[in-house]
């Protein structure tokens, strides 16, 4: 069977989000749906070496992320699982090439996070972001506890989610990745939680 690339056909991607019912104008926090931006994941004992051989920096510890090249975020979710996420919608070619090159890699299994997960980017006042998350998540994401680059693999509004804090051009943001089928639900839950911060 042919190996096909799930990072392909970027223009044919559609987010599962329908924004008809949601009024976002009042909140001090901005939630951006980045689901159609490119990302890919790799798992396996060869994943770390594979990414390094492709010139990507690797977080040294699990549950750490780092920012590389204008919004390209590399997440280390376990000893042998890595996701490369484009939060700026600028790195499609790199990610597509990375996925293709994994075809020949030994002990590297690609993960379909492009399609399995929805992706939200949350910006705005840092304290308000923490307060908003405290309404939907039982992990302490406050400044002193959840440093830049930390990852929480947790439950957000009772949905499995990956949360990391990163920055781009000096602007700190929170990246939220969760089951793509829950995109609409989670968006509404976040909007509801953020609605008091006007």
């Amino acid at each position, binding site marked *: 069977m042919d190996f096909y690339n799930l990072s*392909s056909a970027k223009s044919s991607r559609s987010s599962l989000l329908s924004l008809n019912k949601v009024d976002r104008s009042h909140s001090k926090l901005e939630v951006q749906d980045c689901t159609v931006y490119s990302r890919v994941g790799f798992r396996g004992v060869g994943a770390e070496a594979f990414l390094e051989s492709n010139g990507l920096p690797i977080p040294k510890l699990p549950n750490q992320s780092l920012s590389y090249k204008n919004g390209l975020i590399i997440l280390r979710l376990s000893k042998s699982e890595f996701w490369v996420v484009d939060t700026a919608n600028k790195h499609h070619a790199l990610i597509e090439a990375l996925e293709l090159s994994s075809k020949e890699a030994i002990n590297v299994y690609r993960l379909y996070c492009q399609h399995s997960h929805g992706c939200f980017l949350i910006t705005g006042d840092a304290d308000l972001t923490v307060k908003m998350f405290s309404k939907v998540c039982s992990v302490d994401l406050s400044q002193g506890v959840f440093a830049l680059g930390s990852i929480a693999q947790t439950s957000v509004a009772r949905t499995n989610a990956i949360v990391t804090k990163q920055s781009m051009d000096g602007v700190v943001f929170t990246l939220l990745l969760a089951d793509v089928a829950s995109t609409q639900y989670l968006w509404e839950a976040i909007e509801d939680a953020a609605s008091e911060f006007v």
Partner: protein
Amino acid sequence: MGTSYSKKAGLGFADLTFTPIYHDKSYLFHDVAVIGAGPAGLAASLKAADAGANVLLVDENPMLGGALTYHRFDVAGVRAAELREQLTAKVRHHKNITVLNSATCNGWFTDNYLPVIQGNRMYKVRAKQCIVASGAFEQHVVFRNNDIPGVVMSSAAMRLMTQYAIKPANKAVVLAGNDDGYLCALELLKNGVEVAVIVDMRSQSSDPLLHSAVIEKGINVLFNSTVYEALPSTDKKRLAAVQVHAITGRGKVAATGVTIPCDLLCMSAGYMPVYQLLCQAGAKLSYDDDSARFALTNLPKNLHVAGSANGVHELDAVINDGELAAYTSLTLLGLASDEPQPVTCNKQTNFPWPIFSHPKGKDFVDFDEDLQSKDIVNATRLGYRDVQLVKRFSTVGMGPSQGRHSALPTARLVADATNRTVTETGVTTARPPFVPEKLSHIAGRIFNPYKLTPMHQKHLELGAHMIPAGIWQRPAYYGNPIDRDKVVQQEVEMVRNAVGIIDVSTLGGLEVRGPDAAEFVNRIYTFGFLKQPVGKTRYAILTNEQGVVVDDGVSCRIGEDHFYITATTGGVDAVYREMTKWNAQWRLSVDIANVTSAFSAVNVAGPLARKVLSKVCFDVDLSNESFPYLAYREGTIEGVPIRLLRVGFVGELGYEIHMPSLFGATIWDALMAAGSEFNMKPFGVESQRLLRLEKGHIIVSQDTDGMSHPGELSLNWAINRKKPFFIGRRSVDIVMERQQTRKLVGFKLSSESCRPKEGHIVLASSDQKDCAITGNVTSSEYSTTIGANIGLAYVGIEQKEVGCKFPIRVDNGEIVMAEVVQLPFYDANNSRQEVI
């Protein structure tokens, strides 16, 4: 009074016109949570915050300060206000302190998990350290008519004067068991209330300066005396006078006394710690009968008590005690701080026996439940010696105040009646919540996740009637629910005669990759998979270790070391969990991924399915020879990659098209456009259930239960008995060797018969009323294709033969006779799915 108590207790009528309002929850994370913003709580908060701890200060009152907001601590009456001003100003401006006032910490749960209710929000506080500085409740004196309006605690009178600027009466008597009664008298005087006398139950004051101060103000003091009876006004609505008697012994008074007119009686008999949160945490409340002091011990690690809750009552000592609790917390947090001086406090606040039972009664122990001292004593005489039994027999402590004032006199009376100490007697168990909480605080903003497929909006636009399928939303059919039966039959006819499309994205998806992938799949599922050819699909059944069928799906071999396996919508997460659990033991070289959400899928089914697909998929030879039944192929539609499974769940030529989810909507549109020429329309899950029923295909969890083994389901063909192992192999062998007791069979009823519903029971006999239940109906529907009511049911083993008629008890107890028929109901030769 009765109405007010009822309201307080939450009794009354439900207001059906009530409009629900928004309630929600939020987590808070703090190094130290301080419960109570009295002097101890304020001092503890400041000490902890100064050392760098992140502090949460919780108080149920709108104003910080606790007793400092109303209590008089010195003769001049200036200390409390000054200290409150000083402490609260620091707290308010401290960057490390978050204040929640008008907020109640309603319980203590393991590891300092504290529900705090403020307004419409319940905060779920996680605190590394918790300091309970909850204060103490003032206790009343038990004497006749102590429930007349005008008989109050001294603290209540001081609250009225200090917090609300209300003069509580014109002429007061103070009944003191401690020095706080004297301070109350001074405060009354300051607010223009004449103080007729201080009736001190003690033989002397412990503070000569305080005694001198009240004497200087012209207040007379009667030592060794008590109010034995309160006398009501003629209309019985308020206090008119008190009868004061000399105390002659413990709980005993002289036969005669003096009557003192007054319209207010302030009682200062002592205090009981607000122990509820601490005892919820497992603390032991003890009482020294000699000194009449309380102590709370056996606190769990990281929980501390300070202030009057800790039996410390002198103001400086209270501050000191708060700082000491903070210091202990800081030490456990690893934060440096100066160690405070040890706390010493010799102030005795509790009069040992403030109970003066009256032969005429009305000497209330529990105001909520109207319980007099004799009620408590009588309970013990009837054999209810344990305070827990006394509570349940007498209902003491069960009213709105939950024993805040009745617990101590009850313990004293029970102890006395049973010849035990108060400590031995104890108090009843304290359970959360501390104060009544609304269900809306618990229920408010509960999260109910749901999942949508990529085609959800398309379904809505097409008029789908959506139903839940586990956490997912799926179209049941496309049309008005009023026309449900008609719409379902039309959709079925469309699939049987032309072509239809159904969204099956909710199907579970699992990928197994790696050198040991085939070995792994072979161990998990019952069939043989080692020799499954690449490009082929194979039915896969999963049994558990008890040999019960728990899931099924289709295994696609994409490569030698790559399997893509579908699973049931509701079962996939459990299957994934099982897979990872087993491989933790087997250590096979595989990667297991749950790709359910990564792939969405549709099934294009019907005699014209190939024609539809060929209009959009050009890189796969769709002919029957190149792409036969049960084959697997990969290709593209609209330039995006797809996986094609030729399967026949609904019994017609059909292609399951699995595509990466973000492409789902694009491919749906392409297929709908391609199918328009053939009048292809979508069909829903209820139509699909009928279609598969006509083919006799089971749905795991609908047609199976917690006992269904493969033999009962006639799935012997899907069990490979030659391979050495699969999960549940041993149990499957055992249960299938045993005498079978039931069987899942297809049944038919004439269309005129009452149609059984899923769940209706199968009986052993139609004649006997109380005969055995041999099974139940699992699937049932009217089939236009067959022209009859058809279904699947478990029947007794003696009822399983084709042609056998068996009774089903339907609604209203009616019995209908169904006939066992050979499965499938439709297309026995499977020729429909082989359409050229």
